[in-house]
């Protein structure tokens, strides 16, 4: 009950149902987004000003709206971190077939769930920046994202750092996360910030007073790690809120929500732009008001990564399509306390696709997860950038 109440307040705050709590009193949506866009432009400009000309050349790319993003395949480049595996015989440039690691390419921007040594991201790696420049780069993220979203990014990077500290045969750790700026930071013409690395692909298109976070990939391995003596469970909200919703369903609803087959990976991961699968599971129109609140609260884990000024209209849009939004589950219906579960779930609506996919291959699925967040109608802000 308390959980439901807390969730209701969170959603109400996000959706503007309760004046004051979480919103900026006295500032209308347009004014809020306008001033937010100005703040992001200022932060990005400060970051660019902190770089030298050579660095600016490496971090700035053209922003060219595309009809669709494409699956991009990469061969191991040999530019990775410690222990990087060079290619075997027959793998040199111009030899052998194309293929290998999959990323999603949108113009000159590329993101993926693979490490940066396998799928190189365009831009500058944090490790190559001095302290001032790094702080300016992180400031761009801090301004662009909500406090919860920024913390999520830090937690994911911390998890990859923990993986790196144990030793990996590929580039990992905070230092190889990469920032790229596509187009010129502007309050009127569209541009894009891309930030990512292993288990993170943030793509934010800023088009006037619209900010679009989709597509974005979050993930973690290990999902639980210790940092400065305290335990961090990455994507805990995504896990716990999903179980809360599942627990709130009655037997008939569960029967519809729980798929009779198992799903072992992301269906619409990198390289699947523009694809919409036939939805399955329980439709939110068959949910009670309380369950719908829990569903919206779960969705806000992704939609709320972006700064509140943009999350609010986005949540309103998702809520408007809620009747046609499906919740589908595959896997165990319980999880150990303090651990993420090993179950897959998907939320699919007219303007939304979310997948949460624990990765079982070669290890413990509760310690390795990939998630994807898309808007089939507006990935890369297409609705605002198409000519």
């Amino acid at each position, binding site marked *: 009950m308390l959980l439901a109440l807390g969730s209701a307040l969170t959603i109400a705050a996000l959706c503007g149902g309760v004046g004051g709590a979480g919103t900026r009193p006295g500032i209308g949506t347009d004014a809020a987004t306008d001033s937010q866009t100005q703040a992001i432009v200022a932060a990005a400009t400060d970051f660019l000003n902190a770089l030298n000309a050579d660095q600016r050349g490496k971090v700035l790319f053209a922003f060219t709206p595309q009809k669709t993003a494409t699956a991009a395949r990469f061969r191991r480049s040999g530019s990775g971190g410690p222990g990087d595996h060079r290619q075997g015989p*027959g*793998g040199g440039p111009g030899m052998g077939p194309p293929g290998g690691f999959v990323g999603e390419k949108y113009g000159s921007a590329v993101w993926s769930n693979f490490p940066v040594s396998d799928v190189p991201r365009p831009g500058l790696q944090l490790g190559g920046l001095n302290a001032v420049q790094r702080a300016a780069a992180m400031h761009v993220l801090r301004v662009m994202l909500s406090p919860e979203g920024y913390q999520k990014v830090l937690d994911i990077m911390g998890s990859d750092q923990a993986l790196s500290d144990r030793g990996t045969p590929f580039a990992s750790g905070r230092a190889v996360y990469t920032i790229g700026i596509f187009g010129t930071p502007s309050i009127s013409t569209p541009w894009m910030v891309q930030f990512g690395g292993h288990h993170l692909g943030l793509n934010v298109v800023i088009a006037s007073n619209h900010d679009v976070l989709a597509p974005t990939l979050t993930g973690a391995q290990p999902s639980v790690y210790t940092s400065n003596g305290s335990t961090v469970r990455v994507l805990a909200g995504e896990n716990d809120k999903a179980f809360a919703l599942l627990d709130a369903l009655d037997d008939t609803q569960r029967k519809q929500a*729980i798929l009779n087959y198992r799903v072992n990976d992301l269906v619409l991961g990198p390289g699947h732009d523009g694809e919409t699968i*036939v939805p399955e599971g329980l439709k939110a129109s068959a949910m009670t008001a309380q369950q719908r609140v829990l569903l919206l609260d779960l969705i806000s884990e992704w939609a709320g990564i972006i700064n509140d000024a943009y999350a609010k209209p986005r949540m309103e849009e998702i809520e408007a399509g809620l009747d046609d939004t499906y919740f589908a589950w595959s896997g165990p219906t319980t999880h150990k306390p303090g651990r993420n579960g090993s179950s897959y779930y998907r939320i699919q609506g007219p303007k939304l696709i979310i997948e949460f996919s624990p990765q079982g291959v070669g290890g413990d699925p509760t310690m390795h997860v990939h998630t994807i967040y898309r808007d089939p109608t507006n990935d890369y802000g297409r609705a605002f950038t198409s000519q």
Partner: protein
Amino acid sequence: MSVRRAILIIAFLLQAPPVSAHRLNEYLQATTIAFEKDHVELRLRLTPGVDVAQKVLADIDANGDGTISKAEQRAYAEQVIDDVSLAIDGHAARLRLVSSFFPTVEEMKQGMGDIALAFEAVMPPGSTTHRLTFENHHRSDIAVYLVNCLQPRDPAIHIVGQDRNYDQSSYQLDFALGAPPTSQAPVGASAAQQGLERPEALPLIVTFFWHGVRHIVTGYDHLLFIAALVLGAATLWDLVKVVTAFTLAHSITLTLAALNLVHAPEGVVEPLISASIVFVAVQNIVAPDHSRGWSRLAVAFFFGLFHGLGFAGGLLDILHQMPRETILLAILGFSFGIEAGNQMVLLPLVGLLAAVRRSRPDAAGRTRLSLAIQRIGSASVSMAGMYYLCIALAANS
């Protein structure tokens, strides 16, 4: 082979390598079905996990020269065509390869390579409703299948319903061409479901049989327990009785747990399973008299109950919310798989022990040797058991 060497080999075999038990070695095969105006496209994305990459590579790089030639790519695509089937309204559709991507050998070896194949089939003429069936049996011994249909871009194509079997190796899709069907059934629970409502028993049992085998041969804890029981048995009749007691017990708890009638936390079951190894192995050493007869049967039965809960954990991970009749088939297949896995280790071990014992001509020598094998083997097993016990207890703390 000298007796001493045989004993050393047994001791070595029983020292399980300290890798994490129950690892998953999988070959992910994701299929996307896309409808276009006059054809349907199958897009397969194939990703072998690192532990099975060599197996898959052996299929692809047939001449083993470390590169994947164009001819080898074509041959592999043909192999995939042979292993999948697409039928529309019961008629097999001819699949034509339209594009393919292969990673390098090195990438595949690291479990990071991704193969992409796209096939095309002609759509049937007419504007009535149709049923598409797709089956994928490519490398079913190691496969994990995904299959999904894209929302058609053409407004004249309507998806009426879809259904899959549990491991997504078999998929059905009902669709209509032309005007939207008058009463559109809710997608997901549809006419197509009728076709799969009564699951085909044999493929399901076979699928879960292999899950059972895999669970046993990758989970050293159960094998160690069996080994300890074998070492304690003096005659084949002893062994049959003790294994029967074990099987009976674990079948009971496996069934009860899989049907959700009993539930025991993993934090209790895992340490008890490890403790059972140590208990039986130590008993073999310090009280060989108790290692046969009624007391041993009781021990095998008692611990068998907990091993059954452990097996159920492995089964429940892959089985959830299935219809009851399907669960029973799954339990049946899984149990047979576990038995087969047990026998794969048990029978060679029994044969080896018998051969070693027979190597002594005199009865007294045989008894002495028997006891020595029992002690040394059991000491090794108990050490391995202690190792698992420590891991299980550490996981709880």
